[in-house]
C-alpha cells in the first residue's frame, strides 16, 4: 500500500526504519518538526539520502566554508562553489568548468561499473553547466601493486575508466596512479572532467518561471544504485516484490554520448531555463535542488517517469541512481522544440512536473500525494555537525621518526647510487604507467596538446587563437599523513608547479578530499588540518577553490587511509604553440640542463623512504612564495622562448626527473652533482619548488640573469649530448652519464621502468 501524506497524518505512530536508512533519532525528529507530522515513506527516503554525508556534507561543511571565506580576490571566477561545478573565465570570451569527484566505494565493490559511472557522473556535472566536455583525468590509488586484491580491483577500474571515457569520445590526458598499503581494501577512484563554453552559454541548476515544465530525459529509471531505499522497499512490498537491488549503478556510455549531444543542442538553441544532472540521490536531488534554487516550489507526477522495471516502488524511483539521466526546466513554448531535439538523438524525454511558487515540493503517485515538503529543507538545510577532533597521540612519535642515515643506510658509492635509481624507477609508484594509460584514448577530439607522461594535461580550446588550458592533479598522501596541514599545501604546490612547467598560468583549484571516518576524532583532525592548509595555500598562491568533493569513510574497521586531499589545478595558456614540453628533443644537442630551486636533506615521506617501508619524520618544507616565483619564471621563459623543456622535480627527486626526461627524449645527456651537496641528497631528496629546465646556449645568459634578478637559485647540472655512447662503452646507444658516479644506457633504464606493471598485471 502507498504511504500517502494523508496516510501519514492519520497514522502518526507508524514505526519507520529511519535508523536503517542512516538517520539519527534527532535527525528523524527534526524531519517530523519540519513537516509537523511523521514523514511518508517517500519523504523519509528523500531526507535520508539527501541528508547523508555524501549529499549533505554535514560533517565537512563547517570546514569547507574556509574555501569561500579565505578565497583570494579574483575576477576569474564566473560561478563559484555550490553549483554543479565552478566556472572560470579564461579570456577571449571563453569559460572553463572543471571538477573532480570520488567514486571510491562503488569501485571497490564492482570495479568496472564503479569506475565507469564515476566518469559518467563527473561528465554530467560538466554538461549541466552548459559546457562541452573536453577531457577527463583519473587520479587512482590502490593497495600494494602485487597484493591479490589490487590485482582484482585495478584491471577492472582501468577498463571501466577506459571503457566509458573511450566510448564517450573524451581524451584521457592524465591523472595519477599510486600504490600504498593504506589503500588496500579502500581504493580511491577519483575522476576529473573539464569542459568549455562561451560566457553566454553558462547554465545553472534552478527552476525559474512559474508554470515552466520539468523534463526528465535520458535513460529509463531502473533499480540500480539504490542503497538504503531497499529497506523501505522491503517494507512496502510483500515478499515476492523486488528484493535486493544492486547498489552499484550500471553505466551506458553510448546513452551518455547521446545525452551530451542532445543537451548541448538544446542549450545552444536557447530552450533551457535551468538544468541539473541526476547523480547521487537521483530524482530526489534534482527536483529538490532545482526547486530550492528557483521559485521554491515544484509539482511532480512521479508515475510518469519511464521505468526499466515496472515493479519499482515510488520510494525506489525517487532514490534510484540510474545513470545517464538529466532534468531540464523548459518553458511551455519551447517544449516542442526541446522534444524534437531529443527525438533526433533518440533520447527519451518526458514532462514529469511543473514549477510552482507554493514553496513546496509536491510529488504525486497515481493520484495520491506522497511527498509534500519545503524543498530547501531537503536540499540545503540539512544537518550540520561540528564533529569533535583532536591531534592523534601518535602524531609526535611519527614526526620524530625521520629517515635519517641512522634509520636507513644511505648509498654513497657510484654503484650503490645507480642501483638506488634503478630500484626507484622500477618501483610501482615511479614505473611507467603505460600499462594503464595505453588503455585510454588520448587523441580523440584532436585538441590534446600534452598528455601523460607529461607533467600536465593540456587541451586546446580555441583552434583559431590557440587558447588552451592545462590541468594537473596531485597529492602525496604520505606527506599529508605526516603533517595534514602542510601535506595539503604540498599537494597544491605540486599541482600548481606541474601546470606551471608547461608554461600555463595557474588560475583555479578543485579538490577531492578522501579521508577515513569523520566520526573518528583523529581522522576529523586530519580533515580539519588539511582543509585549513589548502584554504591558506590557495589564498597565498592567489588561486580560488571553485568546487570539489569530499569522500569520508574510506576505512576498514579502525584503519583509515592516509589522508588524501587530491588537488587539481587549472591553468590557462594564451597560445598552446608556446607550451613547454617535459624534455629535450633532437635539436637539443649541446643545450644546458639547469636545476631551479634549492635541494636539501628532505626524505620524510619520500619515495626513497617508501621503498624501504619507512614512513616518518616531517614532509619537505613548503614555500609557496618560492613556488609562485618559480611559476612566474617558467611562464616568462615560455613566453620569451628561453627554454626548450621543463620538468617538475618531486617523487624520487632529481634523479627520477632526469631519468624520465631522458627516457621520453631517447637522447642522452651528461650530468654532474651540484657543488656542496652530498650526491645522495642531490639525486633523491624531495625538496619542493624545484624544476629541471633545458636552455639553449644562446639563451643561457638571459635566463640566468632573469633568475638572479628575481632571486630564484639556478644551478647548471648537465648538458644534452647524444654522442656519449662510444666513450662510455655503449657504442651506438643513448647514454646518461652522472659525473664520475655512474653511467647507464637509456634502454637499460627503460627496460626496468616498463617491466614492472605488465609483470604484475599481465600474469
Amino acid at each position, binding site marked *: 500500500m502507498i504511504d500517502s501524506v494523508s496516510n501519514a497524518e492519520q497514522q502518526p505512530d507508524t514505526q519507520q526504519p529511519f535508523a536503517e536508512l542512516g538517520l539519527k533519532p534527532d535527525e528523524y525528529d527534526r524531519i517530523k518538526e519540519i513537516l509537523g507530522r511523521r514523514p511518508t515513506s517517500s519523504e523519509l527516503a528523500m531526507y535520508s539520502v539527501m541528508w547523508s554525508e555524501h549529499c549533505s556534507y554535514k560533517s565537512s561543511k563547517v570546514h569547507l566554508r574556509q574555501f569561500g571565506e579565505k578565497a583570494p580576490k579574483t575576477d576569474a571566477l564566473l560561478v563559484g562553489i555550490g553549483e554543479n561545478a565552478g566556472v572560470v573565465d579564461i579570456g577571449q570570451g571563453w569559460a572553463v568548468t572543471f571538477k573532480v569527484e570520488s567514486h571510491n566505494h562503488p569501485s571497490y565493490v564492482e570495479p568496472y561499473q564503479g569506475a565507469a559511472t564515476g566518469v559518467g557522473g563527473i561528465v554530467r556535472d560538466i554538461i549541466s553547466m552548459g559546457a562541452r566536455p573536453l577531457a577527463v583525468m583519473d587520479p587512482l590509488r590502490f593497495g600494494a601493486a602485487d597484493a591479490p586484491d589490487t590485482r582484482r580491483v585495478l584491471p577492472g577500474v582501468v577498463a571501466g575508466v577506459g571503457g566509458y571515457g*573511450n*566510448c564517450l569520445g573524451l581524451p584521457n590526458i592524465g591523472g595519477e596512479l599510486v600504490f600504498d598499503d593504506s589503500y588496500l581494501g579502500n581504493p580511491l577512484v577519483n575522476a576529473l572532467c573539464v569542459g568549455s563554453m562561451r560566457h553566454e552559454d553558462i547554465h545553472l541548476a534552478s527552476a525559474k518561471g512559474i508554470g515552466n515544465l520539468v523534463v526528465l530525459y535520458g535513460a529509463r529509471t531502473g533499480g540500480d544504485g539504490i542503497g538504503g531505499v531497499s529497506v523501505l522497499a522491503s517494507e512496502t512490498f510483500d515478499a515476492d516484490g523486488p528484493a535486493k537491488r544492486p547498489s552499484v549503478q550500471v553505466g551506458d*556510455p*553510448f546513452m551518455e*554520448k*547521446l545525452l551530451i549531444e542532445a543537451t548541448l543542442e538544446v542549450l545552444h538553441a536557447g530552450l533551457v531555463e535551468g538544468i541539473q544532472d541526476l547523480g547521487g540521490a537521483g530524482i530526489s536531488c534534482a527536483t529538490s535542488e532545482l526547486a530550492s534554487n528557483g521559485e521554491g516550489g515544484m509539482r511532480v507526477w512521479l508515475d510518469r517517469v519511464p521505468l526499466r522495471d515496472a515493479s519499482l516502488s515510488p520510494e525506489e524511483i525517487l532514490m534510484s541512481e540510474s545513470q545517464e539521466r538529466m532534468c531540464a526546466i523548459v518553458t511551455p513554448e519551447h517544449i516542442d522544440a526541446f522534444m524534437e531535439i531529443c527525438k533526433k538523438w533518440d533520447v527519451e524525454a518526458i514532462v514529469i512536473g511543473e514549477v510552482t511558487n507554493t514553496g513546496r515540493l509536491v510529488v504525486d503517485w497515481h493520484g495520491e500525494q506522497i511527498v509534500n515538503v519545503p524543498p530547501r529543507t531537503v536540499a540545503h538545510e540539512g544537518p550540520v555537525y561540528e564533529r569533535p577532533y583532536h591531534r592523534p597521540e601518535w602524531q609526535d612519535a611519527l614526526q620524530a621518526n625521520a629517515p635519517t642515515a641512522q634509520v636507513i643506510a644511505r648509498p654513497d658509492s657510484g654503484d650503490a647510487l645507480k642501483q638506488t635509481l634503478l630500484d626507484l624507477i622500477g618501483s610501482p609508484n615511479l614505473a611507467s604507467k603505460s600499462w594503464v594509460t*595505453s588503455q585510454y584514448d588520448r*587523441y580523440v577530439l*584532436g585538441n590534446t596538446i600534452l598528455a601523460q607522461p607529461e607533467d600536465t594535461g593540456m587541451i*586546446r580550446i580555441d583552434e583559431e587563437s590557440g587558447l588552451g588550458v592545462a590541468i594537473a592533479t596531485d597529492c602525496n598522501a604520505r606527506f599529508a599523513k605526516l603533517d595534514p596541514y602542510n601535506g595539503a599545501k604540498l599537494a597544491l604546490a605540486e599541482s600548481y608547479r606541474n601546470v606551471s612547467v608547461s608554461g600555463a598560468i595557474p588560475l583555479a583549484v578543485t579538490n577531492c578530499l578522501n579521508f577515513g571516518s569523520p566520526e573518528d576524532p583523529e581522522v576529523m583532525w586530519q580533515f580539519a588540518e588539511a582543509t585549513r592548509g589548502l584554504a591558506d595555500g590557495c589564498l597565498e598562491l592567489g588561486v580560488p577553490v571553485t568546487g570539489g568533493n569530499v569522500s569520508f569513510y574510506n576505512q576498514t574497521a579502525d584503519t583509515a587511509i592516509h589522508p588524501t586531499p587530491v588537488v587539481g589545478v587549472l591553468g590557462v595558456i594564451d597560445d598552446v604553440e608556446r607550451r613547454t614540453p617535459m624534455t629535450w628533443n633532437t635539436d637539443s644537442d649541446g643545450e644546458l640542463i639547469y636545476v631551479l630551486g634549492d635541494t636539501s636533506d628532505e626524505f620524510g615521506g619520500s619515495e626513497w623512504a617508501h621503498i624501504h617501508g619507512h614512513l616518518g619524520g616531517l614532509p619537505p618544507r613548503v614555500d609557496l612564495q618560492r613556488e609562485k616565483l618559480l611559476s612566474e619564471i617558467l611562464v616568462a621563459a615560455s613566453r620569451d622562448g628561453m627554454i626548450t623543456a621543463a620538468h617538475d622535480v618531486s617523487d624520487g627527486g632529481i634523479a627520477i626527473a632526469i631519468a624520465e626526461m631522458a627516457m621520453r627524449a631517447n637522447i642522452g645527456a651528461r650530468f654532474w652533482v651540484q657543488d656542496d651537496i652530498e650526491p645522495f641528497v642531490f639525486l633523491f631528496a624531495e625538496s619542493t619548488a624545484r624544476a629541471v629546465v633545458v636552455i639553449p646556449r644562446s639563451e643561457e645568459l638571459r635566463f640566468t640573469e632573469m633568475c638572479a634578478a628575481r632571486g630564484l637559485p639556478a644551478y647548471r647540472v648537465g648538458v644534452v649530448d647524444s654522442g656519449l655512447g662510444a666513450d662510455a662503452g655503449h657504442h651506438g646507444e643513448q647514454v646518461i652519464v652522472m659525473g664520475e658516479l655512474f653511467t647507464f644506457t637509456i634502454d637499460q633504464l627503460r627496460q626496468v621502468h616498463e617491466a614492472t606493471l605488465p609483470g604484475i598485471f599481465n600474469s
Partner: protein
Amino acid sequence: MSARIGVVTFPGSLDDRDAARAISIAGGEAVSLWHGDADLKNVDAVVLPGGFSYGDYLRCGAIAKFAPVMSLIIEKAHQGLPVLGICNGFQILCESHLLPGALTRNDHQHFICRDQKLRIENTDSYWTRDYSMGQEIVIPLKNGEGGYVADEKTLDELFAEGRVIATYQDGNPNGSYRDIAGITNSRGNVVGLMPHPEHAVEALTGPSLDGLGFFTSAISSLVNA
C-alpha cells in the same frame, strides 16, 4: 575547385570532427552527413569516422550498415565513390561487405592507444596515392576490436592483388592476421584502415603529419579527375 568530402555522423561517432578537420587541413571541403538522412549532399567522397556507432551493440558496425545514409553510400561505392572507413568505419565497411573479412576483439583483450608504425603497401588506391611504396609512417592507433581476420584464401588474394594498403611494423598491436592494418577493394576506391590518420595532421596534436597523405591523395585525385 575543391573536393567535397562527406563525414558521416552516426549516434556514437567520435572522431567525426577530427576527420572534418583533417579534410580541411588537407585542402578539401568537409561536409557533414547525418546517419538518418538518405542524402549525400553531392559529395565527391565519404569518410566513415571512428567511434562506437550505435554503441557498438550487437557487433561493431553491424547496426550502422542499416542506416539510411549507408544504403546510398553502399550503392555509390559500388559505382566508384571513394570511401575511407577509419576504425569503426572500417568495421562498418566489412559489415556492409564492401570489404572482405571482419574485425575482432584485440588478442590481448585490452583497448590499446599508441603511436603505431605502419608500412604503406599500396600506392594505387584513391586514398594512398600520395605515399611511396614501402614508406614507413607513424600514426595513432586506438581500438578495442581491431584484429583483422579473414580466411586464408581471402588473405592470399588480398596480398596477391596488392589490396593490403598498410601493415603494422614493430609489433602487431591487436592480433590482426598477417599484420594487416588496412585493405582496399579491387577497384581501389573503398579503403578500410584501423589506425587513425586524422589524428596525425598537426604537429601540435599528433605524433607526426604522416596521416595527411590519406586525405590529400583523395583530394588531388578528385580535383584532377
